[in-house]
């Protein structure tokens, strides 16, 4: 029983990471820096809350969340690809912008500075957090299935091949007629949608939006991408690993064995270790962050 609870808890925590990390893999593989995952997630969470609140339906919430992800994704894409702005600065700007916008509209819509009213999620009001709640939440299934699907997309489809080419050697891709900017726009917008879905899940699972509710999950997802060496399946495994560590810490809370702060450090420490090449080289896509081509 304990094992089951552990697994359920891990999955519950991992889903937002899985969504955002999938988005991160797609965008970064295409050569665009994904510091924006945090902002995408938060905007997805907020838009989903708005949608669910005004319609009473979780699915409408999902659609609104996706719309939010598309808008933010396009903003990132236009700034980075058309304007060739420094992608790191754009990432930070968008994250700050989303925090400000969500707070502002939180005020405007709900007259609160910290949270929205309760909204409908999946599995009804009394679902709790048991097996049924998890199993009946379609986003959970999508999130889990996303890992192999992204792997399939990146390594089996023509689009995936082109994305990988564009992120490594855009000039070579261009020379054979691959429309580099278009591929990047697609990848970044897709990353916006996927990361936003991570936020949608969060908000609908907690049945409300709270200020800055993503709390750095977007960065953990980015850590998973890097630790997973920009491979969708590896990144997915990293997400599960990070989530498991969090679950372990929560379950051990009563024992006070490991302080929560240290567990929260794990993804970040591992990423630094990976970047320093201490567990094999973690080499990013060669054209990452350079939009000159």
């Amino acid at each position, binding site marked *: 029983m304990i094992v089951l609870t552990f697994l359920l808890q891990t999955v519950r925590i991992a889903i937002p990471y899985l969504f955002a990390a999938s988005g991160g893999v797609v965008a970064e593989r295409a050569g665009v820096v994904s510091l924006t995952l945090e902002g995408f997630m938060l905007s997805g969470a907020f838009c989903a809350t708005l949608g669910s609140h005004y319609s009473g339906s979780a699915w409408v919430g999902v659609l609104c969340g996706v719309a939010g992800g598309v808008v933010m994704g396009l903003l990132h894409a236009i700034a980075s690809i058309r304007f060739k702005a420094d992608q790191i600065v754009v990432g*930070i700007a968008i994250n700050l912008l989303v925090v400000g916008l969500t707070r502002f509209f939180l005020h405007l819509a709900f007259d609160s*500075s910290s949270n929205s009213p309760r909204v409908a999620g999946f599995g009804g009001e009394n679902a709790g957090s048991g097996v049924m709640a998890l199993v009946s939440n379609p986003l959970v299934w999508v999130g889990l299935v996303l890992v192999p699907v992204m792997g399939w997309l990146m390594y089996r489809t023509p689009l995936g091949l082109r994305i990988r080419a564009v992120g490594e050697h855009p000039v070579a891709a261009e020379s054979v007629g691959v429309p580099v900017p278009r591929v990047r726009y697609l990848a970044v917008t897709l990353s916006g949608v996927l990361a936003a879905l991570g936020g949608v899940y969060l908000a609908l699972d907690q049945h409300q939006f709270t200020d800055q509710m993503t709390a750095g999950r977007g*960065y953990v997802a980015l850590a998973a991408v890097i630790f997973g060496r920009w491979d969708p399946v590896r990144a997915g495994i990293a997400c599960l690993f990070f989530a498991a560590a969090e679950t372990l810490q929560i379950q051990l809370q009563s024992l006070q064995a490991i302080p929560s702060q240290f567990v929260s450090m794990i993804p*970040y*420490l591992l*990423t630094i270790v990976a*970047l*320093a090449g201490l567990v094999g080289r973690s080499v990013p896509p060669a054209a990452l962050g350079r939009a*000159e081509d």
Partner: protein
Amino acid sequence: MSTAVDVTPPPAAPDAPSPARRSRARTRLEEAFLPPIVAILAAVVVGDLLILSFGQSPGAVYRLLLEGTWGNAYGFGQVLYKTTALTCTGLAVALALRAGLFNIGAEGQLAAGGFMAAALGLLLPAGTPWVLAVPLCVIAAMVGGGAVGAVPGALKAKFGAHEVIVTIMLNFITLALLNWIVAARLHVPETLHTPELHAGKIARLGGPFTGSAANWTILLALLAAAGVWWYLFRTRRGYELRAVGLQPDAAEYAGVRVGGVWWRAMAVSGALAGLGGVNFVLGYKGYYEDGFAGGAGFLGIAVALVGRNDPVGVVLAALFFATLSQGGLAINAVVPKQMVEVLQGVVILAVALAVPEVRRLLRVQPRRV
């Protein structure tokens, strides 16, 4: 075999343009000032939209904002207080950028600096004269920030690890660590802060600014700005640092050890951010509080960008963002202060977009700074 005409093989860029029609100085001024101006204009436009969506008049709101900041002594004192930390983090990011490095970790470095100052302040005996205690605590702050900053620098020099990701990760690690230390050992019950320091506190400015948080740390911040300016533009190491940021190949040719410049720049950058921590810990509250940084580290990036990585520009930009931040409080009754946060994001985004666009329009060669 020889050629009579030296024709550069394409698609390499042609040789440097012959003295241009528009004066060189004018181009430089335009390149430096246009992006921030564009950014501020963009902020005003978006601000107008947000204000209107709340059913208020932009003119009235802006007037209220100015009255609440530059219009009264308390408000201006608060502006000065906020300018201090932003100047420090802005200098930190600007210096690193001059070396071609992106320091996103100012938040953690600032917190670490504040913590080290508090730690020393708690260790020193209560009667320590301020001439001794304050400098010691300030140095402790800079050492703390510098140590945190040196790590990404060293990792980049040794392993080529990209400093953007490392600094972001280290931010979380540093803040988590500090949170644990305070929560586990040092906090006053029912709070998230340490007990008051025994020594090393910095006096408030008082005078016309009595009642505000403005304190003498601002003098330190301005001195730091002057110091950074002198370091960058008057010393040999600054010459080499800027060279690394502009054209690492030429710096290498000039005998500069690029890796050494990297980690030293990051260490100094961290130290500057750490200095910012003193503003709250020594100058305002007299204790270390978890989360006191309040985003100053990230805003420092905006300050550096709008300030075009120049110490003077950084001070001005810090003043601007501090005004905006304090102004948010002043207008909160009318329009939520969160509007200011939106505007901050808009300004950063606008500068980010404007810089390459202005360069493209002026046909200036691209560079990192």
